[in-house]
């Protein structure tokens, strides 16, 4: 008689309705886990590329009547500062285009501010730059991309923590369900367990019988989750949401391995629970 037969007939957990649903539960929760982790990866990557662009931007707004000579001297000074890659004065046309959405057609009647766009490295001392500008132009205003990055970054981190918490909760729910199922299943078969022990079954052999049953079901659940993920990705791709991002290796690895995390959780929990019941 093979170990599989022993598992199927002598110590079967099949009688438990929750255990019979293990494949469906693993597939559904695995799908949710994969979507959550995939979303996290996409959010992180989108944020990172946006952050790289934003963090290097620093704009200075001067009044329209700012002295041309002082501005020229300022530009020369700023260009020599550490971390400053480029200082570029916006043309009147570009400033008009920038302000039109905010002020409407009235922008033509207003005196246009003098706008300088600075491209900075991360080594730039933004406070020193700000102070240097204010020294010549006390009414100057600034648009610092770094502040926006910090605000959006905090939001992204909050979303990531929420998603991570959701995945953790899913893993805990799955673990709890498996633990309760294995415990109830084995407690209902205490007599069979003790008979197996009397004929020389070691604890690890009995644990193996339980883990085998859980392993097959959770692996089937993983395959089910992969199918659900494939269908979801196809739907998102055809709607254009995933355009260009679908063939990202990190994203693909995350959504494929995410449900495996669930499978691993069920295995570890079933093993430890079986060991605990068998030794008790």
């Amino acid at each position, binding site marked *: 008689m093979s170990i599989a037969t022993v598992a199927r007939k002598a110590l079967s957990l099949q009688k438990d309705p929750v255990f019979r649903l293990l494949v469906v539960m693993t597939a559904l929760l695995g799908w949710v886990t994969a979507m959550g982790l995939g979303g996290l990866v996409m959010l992180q990557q989108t944020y990172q590329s946006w952050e790289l662009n934003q963090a290097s931007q620093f704009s200075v707004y001067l009044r329209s009547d700012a002295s041309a000579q002082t501005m020229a001297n300022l530009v020369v000074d700023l260009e020599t500062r550490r971390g400053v890659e480029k200082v570029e004065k916006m043309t009147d046309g570009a400033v008009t285009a920038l302000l039109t959405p905010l002020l409407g057609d009235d922008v033509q009647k207003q005196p246009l501010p003098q706008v300088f766009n600075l491209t900075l490295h991360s080594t730039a001392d933004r406070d020193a730059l700000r102070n240097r500008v204010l020294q010549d132009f006390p009414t100057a205003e600034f648009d610092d991309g770094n502040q926006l990055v910090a605000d959006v970054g905090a939001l992204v981190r909050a979303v990531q923590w929420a998603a991570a918490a959701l995945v953790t909760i899913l893993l805990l729910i799955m673990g709890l369900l498996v633990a309760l199922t294995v415990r109830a299943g084995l407690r209902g078969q205490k007599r*069979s367990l003790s008979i197996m022990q009397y004929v020389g079954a070691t604890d690890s052999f009995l644990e193996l019988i339980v883990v085998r049953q859980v392993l097959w079901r959770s692996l089937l659940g993983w395959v089910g989750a992969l199918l659900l993920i494939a269908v979801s990705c196809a739907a998102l791709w055809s709607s254009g949401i995933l355009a260009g991002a679908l063939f990202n290796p990190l994203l693909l690895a995350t959504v494929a391995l995410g449900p495996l995390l669930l499978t691993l959780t069920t295995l570890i929990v079933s093993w430890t629970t079986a060991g605990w019941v068998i030794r008790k």
Partner: protein
Amino acid sequence: MIRFDNVVFQYPGASTPAVDRISFELAPGTFHFLCGPSGAGKTTLFRMMYLDLQPTGGSITAFNKSGRRFSRTEVAILRRKMGIVFQDYRLLPHLTVQENVEIPLTLHGQPSAAQLKAVKEILEWVGLGHKLKAMPAELSGGEQQRVAIARAVVNRPKFLIADEPTGNVDALMGRKIMHLFTELHKHGTTVLVATHDRELVKNFGFPTLYLENGKLKV
């Protein structure tokens, strides 16, 4: 084969030990009865034989392994060298007769073909060769006991212990079962049979360990 040295066992909360400073040795190839009135400590001693209970005092030596505490893995490995027969048979209800007898062979990692051959032989020997595919619930008490014996000896253990093996069967079946045990003994198996059936003990004439109030009487 198995030796008890000043073995004591006291259940938690009990005022007196169930087994009190017992010493004896079952040499290889011997046959003994274990007798005594109800409450004498027979079951406790029997459970200590197959290491279901570990002594609270003294030490047990089984198959040259000695100690007061055996690890769970050691217990399992030692049990594979023993055959145990219970009064209530303890067959797995969802397995056929063949599968029940195969379990010890599965634990030994024997291939399926060898398992089937050994199971057929042993079931023929106990007179149940035709019940291979029967479920335990379809068998009489005597048949179930013979399946239990087949399971206990299919591995050809060096030591066979039986707790009241004739307790739930009629006299004729009881004699048949005892003849199976004596046959095993003739082939070199060490046998210990716990019973309260004095007639049985008298008829077979093997040495007896007599327990009374947890102490061994010679």
